[in-house]
């Protein structure tokens, strides 16, 4: 491991060089908030951003992605054949991604990269991507990363971690991809590792101490699924919910999608779109039956998936990195911290069978 020092005055030049090798993405302020966008030539990522409104998951997993297309025009080559669409999997780099959003890719990977199924689109995009993290110095009041298996200096899934150090960034190399990124930028000045690591450790402690929101998740695994499912608080939790997709679309760890065929004239395509368990259509059967027919079912499903089913299935903590977006953006203020608290406090029902 090595730590490289990037003088901020060399930042722009380095990015220019990087743009020759990578498609660069970074936080850009549009209207009143930031989002990750592909940077135009000469455009700088705005690293003053606390965090973006939407998570950067769309860089790897677009909200709408065309997978196949066909043409019935007999004058065209390969007509009447459903063909894969050409994709750009050339190297890309996400600059200024927060550690929580980076870790989210590791969580999502559990779904898209399994022994049984490998999602070619997600994996190809992920492998083409270098994640250049930016350590959080000012976590928001709604950030609860440290109790969600993450933290302001967390390194999981990152290739590089940038730490703001006044006139410089320190770039902590985590993977070979990260090292290649620095080389492409011409940033090669190593700093004394021992003293820098000590200082980074101190800064990390300061940042972690600023986290003021927490969730308790220690009981979720041992509480019986049915006790949680049948708990009395779901009516209260779900009452305000309007079943929009804001929480699921803003969430860096929500991965569900829907596949649609769209056609026009004699050509068409097969696309996949983000989907949301908040929508009635999500579970509507062809028969017309809907096993999650009420909003209580749907709200419960979202929290049970993140805080129970996932916990049980993967034994890797909760399906949440504590970024706080769903709390900040929910139009009716449903707060996952409160719900997690309710769930973690469920007492086993008296009539549960001891086996």
């Amino acid at each position, binding site marked *: 491991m090595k730590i490289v020092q990037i003088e901020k005055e060399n930042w722009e030049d380095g990015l220019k060089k990087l743009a020759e090798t990578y498609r660069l993405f970074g936080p850009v302020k*549009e*209207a*009143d*908030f930031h989002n990750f966008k592909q940077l135009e030539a000469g455009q700088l990522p705005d690293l*003053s951003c*606390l965090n973006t*409104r*939407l998570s950067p998951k769309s860089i790897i997993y677009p*909200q*709408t992605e065309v997978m196949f297309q066909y043409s019935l025009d007999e004058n065209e080559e390969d007509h009447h054949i459903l063909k894969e669409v050409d994709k750009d999997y050339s190297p890309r780099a996400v600059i200024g991604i927060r550690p929580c959003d980076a870790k989210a890719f590791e969580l999502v990977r559990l779904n898209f990269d399994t022994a049984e199924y490998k999602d070619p689109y997600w994996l190809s995009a992920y492998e083409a991507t270098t994640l250049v993290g930016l350590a959080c110095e*000012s976590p*928001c*009041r*709604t950030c609860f990363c440290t109790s969600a298996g993450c933290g302001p200096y967390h390194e999981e899934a990152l290739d590089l971690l940038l730490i703001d150090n006044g006139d410089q960034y320190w770039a902590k190399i985590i993977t070979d991809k990260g090292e290649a990124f620095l080389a492409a930028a011409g940033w090669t000045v190593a700093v004394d590792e021992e003293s820098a690591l000590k200082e980074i450790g101190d800064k990390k402690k300061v940042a972690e101490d600023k986290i003021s929101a927490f969730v308790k998740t220690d009981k979720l695994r041992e509480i019986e699924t049915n006790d949680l499912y049948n708990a009395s608080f779901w009516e*209260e939790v779900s*009452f*305000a919910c*309007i*079943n*929009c*997709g*804001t929480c699921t*679309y*803003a969430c860096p760890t929500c991965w569900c999608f*829907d596949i*649609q065929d*769209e056609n026009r004239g004699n050509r068409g395509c097969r*696309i996949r*779109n983000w989907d*949301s368990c908040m*929508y*009635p*259509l999500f579970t509507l059967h062809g028969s017309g039956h809907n096993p999650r027919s009420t909003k209580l079912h749907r709200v419960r499903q979202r929290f049970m998936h993140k805080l129970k089913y996932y916990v049980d299935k993967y034994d890797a903590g909760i399906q949440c990195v504590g970024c706080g977006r769903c*709390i*900040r*953006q929910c*139009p*009716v*203020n*449903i*707060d996952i*911290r*409160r719900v997690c608290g309710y769930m973690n406090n469920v007492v086993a029902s008296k009539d549960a069978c001891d086996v």
Partner: protein
Amino acid sequence: MVSYIDKIKEISKQLLEEGRVEMVIGFRKGTVPMMNEPYFAKTPEAVEHFVWDSNCGINLCNYLTNRTEKIGIVAKGCDSRNIVTHIIENKIKRDQLVIIGVPCKGMIDRRKISAMFEAEIGEVIEDGNTITVKGADFEETIDKKDVLQQNCAVCIHRNPVIHDELVADPIQEQTDVDRYADVREIEALSPQEKAAYFEKLLEPCIRCYACRNACPLCYCPTCFTDESRPQWVGKGQDPTDVSTFHFLRAYHCAGRCTDCGACERSCPVGINMRVFTKKLEKDCLELFGWEAGLDPDVRPPLDTYKPGDPDDFIK
């Protein structure tokens, strides 16, 4: 407005104690600044969670649709107008409801306030006409009238139009407001300019449907966007599909929208889709002299035919 809350609690408690309703719908204090959560009380004790301040912008009528029990509901002017519309459209029965009317002094626009500060806002305290915003290392006091939701700033029906209880004396309605200045600006654009304006307006849309789902009018069992046989509109991010959703949704609200602002308030990406519904509101006012939700006994203009109805659009 803070003094309203004692009265809301008192009335709600009484309704529940006397068994006149099974639940009262109001707001409880939010977990983040400038947010409250729609909340129901089924016991006199739960009433203590109720709050009332300038962060109650969600339209509570949305929570009445197709309910069958007896309900007490806290209603500001716009909520009450949507209740009237719900009664007209048979989504709730008048005798199911005890309407606790709140003369509304306007709701604050949390996005406007957030945009005024670079740093994160920690706390927002209101005191009459002033709002104090506090962060880690700043504190600033602003005039409430400068940070009202835009629909509240031009509202002329702040007092509930229908109610069984009133938590305070009616307040003076605004009379000197220009309600449609923004619509006129768009009307003045050329078709190409309008198309460009709408395209830019809707560009950030992520199709989360918060606008639709926060709207008390949008209660269709299956929204046209969710239909698959036939599929009227694509479900992806194609700009034509996105704008089709917004345009059609707006048309479905013609003559029904009360400009409560719940759609805009709910949008996670800050789109003012109210420009569409306001245009239709303005047309209904100009063509039919109609304002939605003022009288449960009058059928809406798009629901009736009169020989004298304007027909200039038939060429």
